[in-house]
């Protein structure tokens, strides 16, 4: 599989228009599912290759780097590929019932087209070694996700998508300006070349401005507090399957882009010593953890609650990155992976509720645990992982994050991490109390358990949460090696 890096992107890209041609809802779904599992298989192959051979470099169309586009996958990229492809593949079996329930029959073909395009964009961002190519893939994933979000069954889906469109476009423009300035100063768009030529010109105002543009632009994409305003609406009003997919992958890829720019392109010494970006990030991350968690406690809509929780969890990840140590970045990447597992599972569970009940408001789900015990048990397990109860992935990442903060001698951050977990107890438990301890309404009593096709992916993710919570050697090893790849590349 010499061409695996190209296939990783080309397969879903070529499949997307075919999906539109198929049109028929069931066939389109079956085709897209097949493609998403194929994508996962390629990702697994690639990851194994990176494990065995180290960084994989691939010249697209045999045009060598400065002229052509280089695809480049190191350990950090391999980790991301695995997350995106696995979530993308797991969401698909779930999507059929959920999407047929929430979308009009004739737009389902379009839905899977956009889904595959979004997958293409996200994977492309990770494999590419070219900054402009990265921008293109970013746009592919963003534009398709605007469409995906607008397909939600509420009219507010449209405004949510529009809001995201405006914010996302501003972010993309900022990134493009930043890349343009970098090109102006170095004459290259290839990441490896950039990282070699940049040190000579870092002490110029242009590069500093480029750094600022890129940082703000990417922060918008990854919904770093206070640039997260598009996120709650987008997650709340998107179709259930899309909420799960985007929450687990899109913002994570944003974080990956941030890591690439900070560590691979600009380098640790410029980003964190000359520009002091760590000091800014740590404040924003801390605010995200506190403010977004607090806001989540007061939400009545469970999807919106989870959305604010995502903003807080992005804070955790960025907090790890802001430490700029191997331990810190490793902890951040570990939480990136773990949070993808946690949030996808939770959004899928909420999607099951929505399928049956048609609402995800806390006051509407009273007593639902009696009728949908498996769904609610999955939600509780995911919630415990979100809180960070031992033997779940959430505990492992919080342990590493707090440990990294303590190693750096910054114990207030460790305290903050633990305190923010307590806020998670508060918002998760509001749902638990309503579902388990309140008397059920007539409407709830008439419900059935969600279909197996939706429960199985949800529980697979929960099982992954528990497995990687008990034996974290694989995930923490991946994250550590990813961090080493990033910091090693940025070092002297």
């Amino acid at each position: 599989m010499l061409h695996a890096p190209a296939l990783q992107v080309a397969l879903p890209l070529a499949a997307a228009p075919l999906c539109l041609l198929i049109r028929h809802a069931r066939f389109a779904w079956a085709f897209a599912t097949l493609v998403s599992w194929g994508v996962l298989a390629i990702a697994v192959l690639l990851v194994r290759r990176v494990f065995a051979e180290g960084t994989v470099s691939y010249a697209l169309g045999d045009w060598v780097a400065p002229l052509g586009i280089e695809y480049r996958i190191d350990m950090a990229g391999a980790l991301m590929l695995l997350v995106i492809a696995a979530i993308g593949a797991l969401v698909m079996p779930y999507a059929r019932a959920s999407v047929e329930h929430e979308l009009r029959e004739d737009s389902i073909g379009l839905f899977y087209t956009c889904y595959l395009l979004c997958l293409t964009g996200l994977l492309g961002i990770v494999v590419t070694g070219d900054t402009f190519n990265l921008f293109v893939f970013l746009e592919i994933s963003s534009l398709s996700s605007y469409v995906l979000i607008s397909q939600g069954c509420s009219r507010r889906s449209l405004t949510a998508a529009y809001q995201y469109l405006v914010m996302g476009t501003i972010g993309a423009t900022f990134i493009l300006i930043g890349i343009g300035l970098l090109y102006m100063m170095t004459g290259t768009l290839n990441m490896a070349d950039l990282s070699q030529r940049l040190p000579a010109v870092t002490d110029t105002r242009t590069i500093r401005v480029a750094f600022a543009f890129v940082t703000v632009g990417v922060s918008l994409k990854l919904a770093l507090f206070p640039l997260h305003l598009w996120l709650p609406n987008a997650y709340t009003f998107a179709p259930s399957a899309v909420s799960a997919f985007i929450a687990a992958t899109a913002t994570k890829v944003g974080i990956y882009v941030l890591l690439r720019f900070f560590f691979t392109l600009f380098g640790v010494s410029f980003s964190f010593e000359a520009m002091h970006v760590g000091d800014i990030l740590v404040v924003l991350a801390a605010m995200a953890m506190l403010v977004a968690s607090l806001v989540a406690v007061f939400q009545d809509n469970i999807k919106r609650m989870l959305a604010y929780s995502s903003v807080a969890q992005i804070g955790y990840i960025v907090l790890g990155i802001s430490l700029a140590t191997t331990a810190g970045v490793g902890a951040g990447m570990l939480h990136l992976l773990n949070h993808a597992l946690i949030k996808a599972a939770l959004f899928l569970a909420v999607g099951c509720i929505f399928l049956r009940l048609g609402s995800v408001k806390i006051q509407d789900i009273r007593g639902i645990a009696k009728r949908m015990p498996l769904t609610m048990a999955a939600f509780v397990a995911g919630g415990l992982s979100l809180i960070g109860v031992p033997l779940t992935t959430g505990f492992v990442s919080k342990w590493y994050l707090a440990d990294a903060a303590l190693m750096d001698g910054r114990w207030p951050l460790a305290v903050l991490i633990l305190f923010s977990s307590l806020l998670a107890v508060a918002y998760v438990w509001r749902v638990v109390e309503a579902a388990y301890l309140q008397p059920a309404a007539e409407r709830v009593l008439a419900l059935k358990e969600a279909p197996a096709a939706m429960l199985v992916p949800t529980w697979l993710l929960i099982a992954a949460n528990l497995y990687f919570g008990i034996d974290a050697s694989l995930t923490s090893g991946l994250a550590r090696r990813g961090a080493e790849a990033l910091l090693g590349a940025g070092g002297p």
Partner: protein
Amino acid sequence: MTPEVTVLASIGLPLGATALIAAFHRQPNLRESVTLATALGLFLLNLSLLGPVLEGQRPGVLVVETLPGLSIAFEVEPLGMLFALVASGLWMVNSLYSIGYMRANREHHQTRYYVCFAVALASTMGVAFAGNLLTLFVFYEALTLSTYPLVTHRGSPAAVRAGRTYLGVLLGTSIGLLLFAILWTWGLAGTLNFAPGGILADTASDPVLGVLLFVYMFGIGKAALMPVHRWLPAAMIAPTPVSALLHAVAVVKAGVFTAVKVIVYVFGADLLSNLQGSSWLIYVAGASVILASLVALRADNLKRRLAYSTVSQLAFIVMAAAVLVPLSLIGAVLHIAAHALGKITLFFAAGSIYTASHKTEVSQLAGIGRRMPWTMAAFTVGALSMVGIPLTAGFVSKWYMLLGAIEAQQLVAIAVIILSTLLNAAYFLPIVYTAFFDAPQSAGEQGVQTGHGEAPLPVVAALTLTALGTVALFFVPELPLALAQQMVGAAP
């Protein structure tokens, strides 16, 4: 079976039993037989460990390495052995009592009740046999979560509120403080394994260790040191067998057990006695003893009075451990067993009174001893043990504590022991007096039955057994004494 397998079986047996209990939810007799058989089996398993432990063996099992250097591992040492024996022994009696109580009061959701009980006991075994702080923390949290459905068993708004307090305080202290302290210890010592003589020697300056001790002692919310005791009175809304076994034995003893373990096996008595300013713990615990007794004095609700008495007795154990001389440590360990037997008897009696007559307040108990002679006789034995009068177990442990305090010349501790004896007498003996010697109330209050006799046979049998145990421990304290001496011998 090798001792190592027995350790795993002690945790696996109650967990496995949950499946059977749930399977037999339509056949209550079969279901309760499973519980009784499991309790008996667990006790026998623990007994079979006793021999090897007394011979000086320390059976240990490594289950899984969660993170590099951190594992889920078990090791049986004398203190844990005693705790496991007490908890599993009393679970047998308590199951007998539960059957009488739950059926006589026609409680709902009995299957859930017995399942959660078994999970709670499995967690208790995990706490008792934990080989390192991480394992201890895992099962400590599992114990909190598995007892939550028992506390909110009634499902009423008051129960939900109490559940919030319960979970809020216990998770708040454990995640916010205890986990932080564990992380800190990990950072300082590089290990979390319990070791005789402690692991923190020469790792940090005295003030730092002093702060760490502070974080530990208030982080162990289950030890209910004031002001983190609020969850315990709140938990009294649970059915009485829960209050009896879990909130007088398993959960609270898990707290003081953890506190003693931290003092003996993490800090080490030597390190602490040389630590400047570690005597604050004696004062704080002493104040907790007195204040809780004062609250108990004023409480009219019988279970609330018992709860505050528990808070006071727990602080007593912590104070004795903080005196740090071997004699007082032995006293602390003995008191774990002595208080367990005495307090479970008192709770059994309170539940028996409620079952027979629906009386919950102390002021309603005039003359009840004539109608319920067995119950009130057992109550008297329990009360005498709380006060520490000879012929009951409470005397033995208090004797050792007093000797220890005199040896260490801790005047404050001596004063607290004497004062608390008086206060205990002041709030327990009037109940005994009024039950036997006051004339019964003439007019029946609303909801209160006057023409009642004794509670059902299983209830009476259970409370008679524990009362006999309380007396027996006075005459044959050899076994707990031997285990306590081993623990102290291992940590001179």
